[in-house]
């Protein structure tokens, strides 16, 4: 399979895996990476203090440090597991939910489908970041108040962020399935007496599973985009601890337990003009991962959808699976994909 030979598939995959594995290695290699770094730096010859945290990129390579003097690069690598694994979990949950609601939607009676469409159109007018913010804000308050443990908050967030997309995702997956069920061979198997369960097992499941891996990587990229936006709204995976450092007015300072990327960015958002690196470094990690995911998804789409079309046309035996890859279906799929990538942001 050409997939295994393509470097455009392997390099991004290796980068992503390296970040996740690296984030498990950091606590072993640097057990005290969570502690504050050196309080100041002195010039080696004269012994004078030359720098105080946050250190710049040249004082503490490769990415400088945060305001506690911790090495930014190590902090970010350590946080990779929370960000990436949560995003993967969210994407997987969305896929599972999308399939189930998609099947339900495809078999709904016509009037009910129209009704569901009207009602769910709501989500086309509220940015997803606001939707998640509304639902999670009370929980963030509970977390900052100390009554909600960080890890449990993380789990709740993962579930909420995946649930919130499922109605509209299911609607689009279901629309694709509905059109798919209009194909001739499906009506043929219907006349031969196939029940709903049979249709789902024999037709819808193969149809969905072929697209699912591409859909998965798209959901993954979209989740990462969403996490960045939520970071701006101070909703991050694992929560932010708020401390008030202002004397007369309320000047919140945020701290994160997980050191997740969006949290690191969110904490440093006020520093944008004097220490831009604090903000750029986590954003760059996000950009690199999103680019990797997008590259993987492009290769997968070429291999799984486009190439098989060609193979299907070449082979003499046009059985039902090959007909599936008629242009129509690929288009439907593109539409679903284009929408989810960006719209639900």
């Amino acid at each position, binding site marked *: 399979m050409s997939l295994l030979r393509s470097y455009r598939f392997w390099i991004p995959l290796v980068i992503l895996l390296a970040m996740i594995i690296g984030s498990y290695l950091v606590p072993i290699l640097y057990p005290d990476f969570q502690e504050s770094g050196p309080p100041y730096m002195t010039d080696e010859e004269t012994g004078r203090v030359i720098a105080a945290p946050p250190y710049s990129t040249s004082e503490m390579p490769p990415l400088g440090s945060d305001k506690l003097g911790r090495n930014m690069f190590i902090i970010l690598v350590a946080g990779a597991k929370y960000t990436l694994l949560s995003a993967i979990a969210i994407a997987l949950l969305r896929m599972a939910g999308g399939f189930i609601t998609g099947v339900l939607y495809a078999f709904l009676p016509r009037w009910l489908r129209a009704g569901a469409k009207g009602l769910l159109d709501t989500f086309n007018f509220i940015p997803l970041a606001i939707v998640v913010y509304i639902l999670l804000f009370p929980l963030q308050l509970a977390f900052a108040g100390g009554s909600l443990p960080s890890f449990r908050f993380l789990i709740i967030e993962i579930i909420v962020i995946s649930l919130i997309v499922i109605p509209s995702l299911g609607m689009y997956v279901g629309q694709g399935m509905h059109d798919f069920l209009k194909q001739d061979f499906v009506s043929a198997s219907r006349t031969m007496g196939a029940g709903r369960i049979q249709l789902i097992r024999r037709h819808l499941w193969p149809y969905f599973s072929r697209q699912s891996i591409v859909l998965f990587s798209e959901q993954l990229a979209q989740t990462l985009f969403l996490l960045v*936006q939520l970071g701006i709204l101070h909703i991050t995976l694992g929560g932010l601890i708020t401390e008030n450092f202002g004397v007369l007015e309320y000047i919140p300072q945020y701290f994160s337990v997980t050191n997740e990327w969006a949290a690191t960015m969110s904490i440093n958002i006020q520093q944008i003009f004097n220490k831009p690196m604090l903000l750029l470094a986590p954003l760059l990690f996000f950009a690199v991962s999103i680019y990797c995911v997008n590259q993987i998804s492009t290769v997968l789409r070429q291999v799984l959808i486009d190439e098989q079309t060609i193979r299907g046309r070449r082979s003499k035996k046009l059985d039902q699976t090959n007909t599936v890859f008629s242009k129509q279906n690929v288009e439907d799929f593109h539409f679903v994909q284009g929408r989810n990538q960006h719209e639900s942001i």
Partner: protein
Amino acid sequence: MKKHLLRLPVQFILTCLGLFLFSGAGSLLMYDHELVIHIAKYLHTLELILKDLLDPGNILIRVEADGKDYPIFPMLLKLFGYSFLLLASAFLIAVVSAALLSYLSMLLPRRAHRFFLRILDLLDSLPDVLVVVILQLFIIWLFKKTGILFFDMYALGEERIYVLPIICLAVMPIAFLIKNFLFQLSEEGDKPYVEFSFSKGFSKAYTLWVHLFRNVWISFYYHMKPIFLLMLSNLLIIEILFNINGFMAAMLSVAVSEPSAFFIGMLMIYVPFFILFSLGQLFITKYTGIHEEVES
């Protein structure tokens, strides 16, 4: 056609109902030793929203800039005007430049076109926040180099800034728009009339611009909703990062504190869009006979 006309008001009412049901969602989740899904409180919030709607003049919204409460009506309209001026101008700039760029890229030789696609993939992977931050830092860098501050880049208090937010807002969806255009162009490119035009000896540039684009605009119109939502969420990010006291920022803060104001604000976004979109749809159906139902 008639059935289609009937469907619009039903759709409208259902979506408004959806907005209403959603605006109470802030009181749905609670944490008290374990996660509580608080249906009773949710229903109570919906009831309160209904009560508030009977007397909308009394709804107060807090403006973050000065921390004072204002009655919803003149205030929200003022913010709406400003934010949607930004949105509309950015949208126009973005669509026109995306159309031009995708047109030009189609005329490029094959290898250059492929390179262009690679760049597009790269741009598409940048989080919107990163784009804004880079643009802001770029303006600062220019300021340091030349001593001229080209645009105001941070709003203080009541101040209103236009140029930089519009540029940011126009830049952010451009990669997505170009991808959209190129995809639809390649869809259209397979159709027989294109081949016919080539065989009559019309140049690629002419066929593309006159025949292909005319059809692409129509299918672009039907894919407008995702683009609109994308720009709305970008607008939110921009208002926060530029410290603009705008509509989306106000929506964010009322979303958790004043559900009835949130509902009214969402209607203010939805109703004009719905009217414009439906009118356009009727217009297209009437004049071209195209009854493209992308989503039904």
